Every structure is written in C-alpha cells, then in structure tokens.
C-alpha cells in the first residue's frame, strides 16, 4: 500500500533569504507591539518589569529565527507529475498536499516588494474546494513560477465542479 513520495523539487537559495527577512520583520513588528504594551503598563504605574516583556519577545523570536527559516526551507518541496501537483511543507505541522491537475480552477503568481527585489514569486493554486488557495509555493524563482503556472493552466480541466 505504501507509495513513497516522488522526488521533490526544492526551493532556491533565495527563498531562504526571503524566509529570514520575513522572520526579521516579524521580530520588528512583535517587538514594537510588545514595547507599546510595556509603555502603556509603565504609564499605568507598573514600575520595573514591563520592559522585560519586549526583551523576552525579541529574544524568543531571535532564537526561533536562527532555527525556523532553515528548517522551513528544507521542508518545502514540490513535484509536478502527470496527474497532479504535490506540495510538501511544514515544520511543526507537516503537510503533503496533492492537487489533481484536472481540478485546478486558476493559478495566481504573486510578488510582494521583498519577493520582487529577490526575483522570487509565490504561486497560489485554487480549486473549487474552498474560499482560499488550496496550495501555495512561496519563494519560487520568477521564471520557475511562470513556467509552472503555464503548465498547470494549460492542462485540460474536468467538468465544472
């Protein structure tokens, strides 16, 4: 019964940079929020400990940033087969998704400012299953994303839903 996963294509090295930049931005945002909370607590009369809160948040996230993006990058993988697209990802919650080729409704290629500067793109695959994307591959090289999109949408779709 057991069928091993196909050999997965890995994300390019640039994707790891993308994950790290995102993690750093997250440290900045959560650190700023924690600092704001600490400021409010200090104004409301709590004296010493409030400023430990942003320190703890930044420290915790920094430790996580040293480890998580690398692991996430290792876990992301995809394979385009004759009958489906397989995407594997997740550090804590490991997921392997198979999207049959005939069920794909549309494919989006998305580029944010950081992705644009790194020459990367995020591919989002939609079926009729739900309101959000059913599959997503971040950090693909722009050309790879375009080629993959072209291959996916050119396949013959099944009947409507």
């Amino acid at each position: 019964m057991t069928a091993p996963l196909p050999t997965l294509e890995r994300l390019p090295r640039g994707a790891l940079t993308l994950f790290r930049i995102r993690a750093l931005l997250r440290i900045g945002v959560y650190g700023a929020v924690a600092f704001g909370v600490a400021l409010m607590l200090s104004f409301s009369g709590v004296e010493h400990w409030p400023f430990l809160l942003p320190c703890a948040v930044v420290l915790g996230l920094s430790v996580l940033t040293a480890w998580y993006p690398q692991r996430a990058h290792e876990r992301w993988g995809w394979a385009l087969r004759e009958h489906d697209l397989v995407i594997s990802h997740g550090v804590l919650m490991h997921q392997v998704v198979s999207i049959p080729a005939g069920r794909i409704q549309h494919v989006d290629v998305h580029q944010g400012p950081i992705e644009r500067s790194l020459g990367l793109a995020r591919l989002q695959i939609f079926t009729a299953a739900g309101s959000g994307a059913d599959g997503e591959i971040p950090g693909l090289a722009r050309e790879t994303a375009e080629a993959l999109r072209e291959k996916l949408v050119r396949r013959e779709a099944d009947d409507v839903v």
Partner: protein
Amino acid sequence: MSSEHVTASAEALPVAAGEVAWKRLSPKAPLAALVPLTGMVGRMLLGALLPTYFAGERGLPAVLWVIVVGLALLMLAVGLYEVATLSYRLDGAQLEIRSGIFTRTSRFIEAARVQNTEVLQPFVSKLLGLVEVKVETASGGKADGHLRGLTPEDAQALIDALQVVRGEGQAGLLPAPGDAAPGERVLSEARLGALLLYGATALGVGVLAVVMGALHEITETFHKLLLPWMESHWEAVAAPGMGWLAATVAALAGLFGLWVVSGARAVLRFHGFRLVDTGTHLRAVGGLITRRQVTVRRARIQQVVLDEPLLRRALGFGSVEVETAGVRAGKEATERAELLVPVVPTASMPGLLREFVPELPDAIDALPLKPAHPKALLRARIRAVGLGVLVAAPATWFWGPWGALAWGLVPAQLLAAWFDWRFQGWLITDALVVVRQGFWRRRTTVVQRARIQSVRARQGPLERGYGIGHVRIDVAGSYVELPSVGWDEAQSLIDLLPARRVPKRAGLRLPSQESSP
C-alpha cells in the same frame, strides 16, 4: 422557452432592438424586504447600538441616538431602493442581475455553473403573495443571486428557464402540501410527531441561545413576582429538603424548556417536509412560517452525511445531509448542508442514501470499515485526560469538595475517547470513500472519489512521535477527515484517493461553446 419565457410576463423596461428585456421585481418587493433588511441593518449596527444603549443610562447626549438611528434609516432606505430598482434577465445561457445606486453592479451567472436553487417564502412574503429565489454557484459564502420579492409565476419562469438552458426538464415550484406532480416520486416525508422527536434529540447552539435569553426573562419575572411571595412564606420555603426539591424541579423545568424550544425550532423549519425526486433533480419543501424549497441537481451532489446521534439511533431514525458545491455559512453542520432530510427511519436509510449515491453498497451498517490506527487511541486518551484536568482542577480550586466531583469527568472522558476511537472507520471502494466517526454522535460521510478536489496528509508534532497522521479530503464546498492512519499510509492515500472523472456528455454543451472552434 429560455429567455422568452422569462420575459413573457415582464414589466418590460426600455431596451434596444434585439436585446433581451430586463425584468423588475414585484412592486410589493420593498415591502417584503423591509423585515429582513431591518434585521440586517440592526445586526450591522449592533456594535454601535449596544454602547449607545448602555452609555445612555449615564446621560450620554441623545445626539448619538440621532446619529445611529439616522444612519440605520439611511442604510434601510438604500437597501429598499436597491430592491425597488433591481432588474434581471436571462440572456442566452447567462442570468444577469443589475443593481446598485452609487455603484452599479452587473452580476453574470452562467446557467451551467448553478449548483442549486432555493425558493423561500418568509411570512411577510407569504402575506404579500411573493417568494424569494436564491441561485447558488460554487463561488463563495453567500447566495450568488438573491432575488427578493418575485411573484411565484416569475420565479417559476426563471427556474424553468435556467433548467431549460442546461438541457434539463422543468421542476414544479412550491407545490401544495399533499400533492406530487405526475412523474415525481416522494422519497421522504416528516410528520409532526417525528419532527418533535427530531427536535428533542437536536440540542444545538441556537437552542441554547434561545434558552439563555428565556432564562434572563424568567430571572427578571422571578425577582418581580415570585421573590416577594417567597419572602412572605419564608418558613415553609426554608423547610428541610426544599433545597433538593427546588434543584430537581429547576433541572426538570430546564430540560423541558430545552425540549420545547428544540421541538418548536424543528417544527418551524421542517413542518410539512417532503423530499421529491423529479428525475434529474431532488426537491425538498418544508417550513411553517418561512416555507423553503431547495432544488438540487443530482449531478451536483458532492457529499452525503448520515447523522445518527445515539439517542436517534435508539429511537430508530437518523438525518441525512446533502452537500453541493454551494458554500453556506453556519455554526452547525445541519445549517451548512444545502439539503437536510430531518427524519429518516433506520430501515429506509440505505434506500434513501442510494438515491443520492447510487454506487453505495446495500448494507451500509455492515461495511467492512478499516479501524483507526491503534496509536490514535493513546492520543485520544491523552487529550481526554488533559480536558478533564483542565475542567476539574479549576472547579476544585473554586468550589472545594463540590468542585472535586468534576474529577469524575476524567474516567468518563477516557471511556468516551475509547468509544469514539473504537467506532470510527473508513473504506475506499472503486467509486467512493466512506468515513464513519463518533459513537455518541455517529456521522457517516460518503464522498465520490471522482469529486475530490484535493487530498492532504497532515502530521502534527504529537502525531510524529506516534508515527501517525491524518488525511483531509476536500470536495467542492465541504471536506471530510479520515480517522488517524499510519503516516506512510497517509502519504500513499494522497495518490490513491482521487479518481478520474467520466468524460463530459455531449448533450450538455452550451451554445457559446458550440460556436467556439
């Protein structure tokens, strides 16, 4: 037929030569829409109304009330104007709905994409002799085309025209109770006694909300009327044993209240329920105050769920939920299902299920289901103990010896976890996936493999330790999760489960497709 039928009784709006005429809703439509629109505006402004109400007691300026009420009236006026000016037409294979005041929106719905149609007749509409039509596609969380305030003839003409465009026969609209049109088969009916049983065994979130509201009113009445009487007869009330008596009476009264509310809800929703097979469609009609008719194309059925809580099993019936790709919001599965057959006797269950899924084997109770992975039991036990401790520890802290009784939850939870694990299973046949879950609330889900949109295998950190995972199967508009399986098997299932579809039939091509190369 097609668009000519729709425009036959149209209040024709001026159109260019050769263009299909637009049609308006009934002139009484704004009146029919007044109640639902008021409710909608009320819900939208709830966030502003509540603080205004509470702040008002402290003497907040009445100007806030003026602003909020003025805003509500404005929104209501806009809504009513939209209903009064909404127009629609069936142009070729497309239903086009035009609405809006400041921003004009034209919505195009391809007839071939329609998943199901629903005809509603709320109480006010019934008084005015109107109906509402909802046309659902697979695109989103709310009805894609909602025409509020059509005459039954116009609604019938629209539904007929949509079906003719799709190359299907016509289905009757809101037939009189007790009648079945020639060539139609009655598949299921629900009588009053059965509905009361259904209500008594369905205690959902909505029922609890109604009961909590009623409790609030009862408490106020108690303080006004009963408390003074009790104080004047204090010696008799405080006699030994009266505390236990009062607690028992209160518990019984509470249960009775729940039963009454739940039964009333079931009767309101399903009174006169009848499910009819029209050949290509299934049509369900029911409802006491708001009469609701749902028409589902057989070919659009995505998933069928057999819902059999323990109490209903003991009483010899269950419910069947039918899902199409139309997406509905709702807290409970029964609210999200497009078609719900409330009372199906256990004996006639296999026959009815085969009406929805012809490939289903005869004895659904005797299917050789594969059990959940043995290590899933350990996971379920850990979760049960965790939940029990989470409830019992604070209860003991706050209520002392009485709270310590909550530790009894731990063995009860452990037993429940074993039952739920033991009585779940799954099966893959050539055409179907059958999943059964739960002992106390048993739900058997049947999915056609050819309808699967995507399959995902998931493994959380705890599951990794046990080498197990779970598989989620998505179909359009819904999903089902298999019981825990080994991780290797989970990964192989994502390859195994989706099946190829039968090629399209030639007769269903649209005119626009026929003209394309």
